[in-house]
């Protein structure tokens, strides 16, 4: 009884302590500090970094990374990996664009694309959970297939601009809904034709990303399915013995992943106003990076979506800031690569105490190996 009252006191007391009590918050806070430091460095390197114009742009750039980060985080938390994210983006972008160039109304095009992507997610989930294929192999297969579909829908060509099918006005509506639309703007100056230049704007992809984040964060943290996702990733045997439908849970995570990837693909399609076959190429790995920087464990069972937000932000700030600072593409890539590896290495060092067997999957198999080796060395 005494213990309870003490506990109550602790929980109701210091708000900072309550925040820290949320599992996974420690990592999120440390990465946030890193993010702030990065922003300060870039502001020093280039005074334009914190301009209202660039901040709006930056948020718009973060949005797709956040969306695919959510996708990968769901799957990673179940202890699996989804390599098909980038290809589903490509498939979604090409399918929607092809239909629209043929004059299909965007609403229908989006619906059909959406259903197809969900189907790929279901296939992923069933291959991994029901057929027990290693997730790395199963999604490597669907990754290739989805890319193939992206190529075949328009006869191995990128599409023309979608306005030739659905007309200029509908095209504008589609593009604004997914990418160019400004929800509100602060500052900036009005041009003679009525459009606003400069200033801080919230663009529509930011709203889409926030909406998806709210829905899926609620799902992960407040619902039964969310609990099952954590339980499955933490200990699949124990979860099954507790009555968790493990197959259904893993499939749900892959479907969430496919939905997010589909929407990210549509955003890319709206950005360019056409469909490109290589859309989303290697985005599945950017998604892993965003998740892992944000504290999602590749071994499953750990991580929160707030971390993914910070992870996606770190990724985009690096891209954007290095560009502003005038770093050439090659240098950008090297710096980003080093930072990803360092942040994950930190993650491994912190978690090397946990002796869970790494699953048979690329990066995490390697990480698991490293952590096993390091813990073996630590133990006499």
């Amino acid at each position, binding site marked *: 009884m005494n213990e309870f009252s003490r*506990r109550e006191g602790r*929980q109701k007391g210091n708000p900072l302590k309550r925040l820290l009590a949320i599992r996974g918050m420690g990592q999120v806070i440390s990465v946030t500090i890193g993010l702030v430091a990065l922003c300060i460095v870039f502001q020093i390197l280039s005074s334009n970094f914190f301009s209202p114009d660039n901040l709006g742009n930056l948020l718009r750039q973060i949005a797709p990374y956040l969306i695919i980060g959510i996708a990968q985080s769901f799957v990673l938390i179940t202890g699996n990996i989804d390599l098909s994210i980038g290809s589903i983006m490509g498939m979604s972008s090409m399918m929607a664009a092809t239909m629209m160039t043929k004059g299909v109304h965007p609403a229908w095009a989006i619906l059909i694309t959406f259903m197809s992507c969900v189907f790929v997610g279901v296939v992923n989930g069933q291959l991994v959970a029901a057929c027990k294929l290693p997730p790395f192999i199963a999604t490597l297969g669907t990754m290739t297939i989805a890319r193939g579909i992206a190529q075949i829908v328009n006869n191995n060509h990128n599409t023309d601009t979608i306005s030739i099918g659905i007309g200029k006005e509908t095209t504008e509506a589609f593009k604004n809904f997914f990418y160019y639309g400004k929800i509100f703007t602060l500052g900036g100056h009005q041009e003679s034709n009525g459009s606003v230049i400069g200033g801080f704007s919230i663009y529509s992809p930011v709203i889409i990303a926030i909406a998806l984040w709210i829905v899926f964060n609620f799902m992960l943290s407040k619902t039964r399915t969310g*609990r099952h996702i954590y339980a499955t990733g933490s200990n699949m045997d*124990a979860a099954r*013995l507790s*009555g968790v439908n493990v197959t259904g849970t893993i499939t749900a995570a892959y479907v969430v992943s496919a939905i997010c990837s589909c929407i990210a693909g549509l955003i890319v399609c709206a950005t360019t106003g056409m469909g490109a076959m290589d859309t989303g190429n290697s985005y599945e790995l950017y998604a892993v990076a965003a998740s892992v920087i944000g504290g999602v464990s590749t071994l499953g069972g750990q991580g929160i979506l707030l971390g993914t937000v910070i992870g996606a932000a770190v990724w985009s700030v690096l891209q954007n800031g290095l560009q502003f600072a005038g770093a050439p593409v090659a240098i950008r890539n090297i710096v980003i690569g080093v930072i990803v590896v360092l942040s994950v290495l930190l993650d491994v060092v912190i978690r090397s105490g946990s002796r869970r067997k790494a699953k048979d999957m690329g990066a995490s198999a390697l990480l698991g190996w490293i952590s096993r080796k390091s813990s073996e060395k630590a133990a006499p």
Partner: protein
Amino acid sequence: MDIIQKDSEILRLHDETHEDIVKMTGISKSFPGVLALDNVSFNLRKGEVLALLGENGAGKSTLMKVLSGIYPRDSGDIEISGLKQEDFTTGKAKELGIVIIHQELNMCSHLSAAENIFLGREIIKRGVVSQDEMNQKAFEILSMLNIDIDPETIVGDLAVSKQQMVEIAKALSANAKILIMDEPTSALTSKEIEDLFRIIIDLKSRGCGIVYISHRLEEISLIADRVTIMRDGKYIATMNYADTSLQEIISLMVGREITEKFPKISCPKGEKIFEVKHLNAGRMVRDVSFELYKGQILGIAGLMGAGRTETTRAVFGVDPKESGEIILEGKPVTIRKPYDAIRNGLVLVPEDRKKDGLCTKLTVRENIAMPSLDVISNFFGVVNRQKEKMIVEKSIKDLSIRLPHSEVEAMSLSGGNQQKVVVSKWLARNSRVVIFDEPTRGIDVAAKVEIYHLMNDLKRRGIGVVFVSSEMPEILGVSDRIIIMCDGRITGELMAFEATQSLILTYATMFESKLSRSDAS
């Protein structure tokens, strides 16, 4: 050639008939909280088969791990072939020709027999592995042992018994002088056992010393020259097999005093609430039937590998059943997956809490609430935190789980408290039958007593309790009725008042006679 010379030198130094190739004196070994070996002495002679016997947890495996260098000893002397060993490691043991063949074979199943035999000692000619020479040498070793295996066969394609023989050949090719076999016959058929015994006798004649660990007492009568009996980490006795009897061996094995107090309560026997009829699931669950009444605790006793855990898993729907019927409160129920069992009010507290019981990275709250999520979440699947809190706090209080707050990771708790979390998961639901599989393994005495009290409390409330345990005192002290399993079958049933340790052990070692069956056919 030089080995034979060395051997003959040693022969000259020692008494020829009773030469000890292993002499261990005063060996002690403790693990945190447990004294696994307490001043144990052990000797093995050249050219003999020594049966090492004892109940579960008697310390047989620990002793053999010390002998093969896997565990360092805390104190005591080891003498191998008359030479005192100070720093004894696995490498040293290998060098001295000590080979242990585990129950689970350690073979590379994708490689050939010859490749396995020479694994790590491949014959290299001009910088490359000489496959031909390895095959030739392997063939010589195999034919010396009268084993009919083509050295080029992939090991994975061989029957288990043949794989075991490849392992023996591997041991011999490494000049094994001391061979330790842990339950070598558990997966073998009668014909294969005969082959194995023929090879063992052959090895004896070559001067190998063989330690044979088995629960199958009838097999031991066929090959053992001497028996050494251990109990609770202590050395009990060594006898010539010819001078002893099965009764004597059993009574020495179980001679343990029941010193602990068990809080037994008596309740009137109520109606039948749970029944398993003719359950079959693989080799380890064969035609298992039992009944459970309200107000009784049903104990399931047996040795390691008797099929008790497999039975509970099959009943609970973790592993598939081949046939059989499960009847709960008079109604037959279909259980295909754990969820079916949980929905019907049948729950399992699994044996291995790290592997099957807990999500160690999740909080205590999430672990306790997990099986009850369907009860505490609404139509849309949103978990009601208020209800969850109530359930979790009630469980923590009922089982007096000691923890700072319910948001700590399950991993950070002590073994006893982890076990209580695993148990409490199930008590929030109104379950009608609870199966406890080894609920007291690896936890301290105080926590054990709390678990017994909990089982008694369930029994008083009319909830069916099945209690699986390898520890005889607690089975005898807690259960009202005991069924005993051996090799996947139920071999006996006893009421608590008539049960004794030696009676249980007699039933628990009632293996089907594989050898006489082959004689009959």
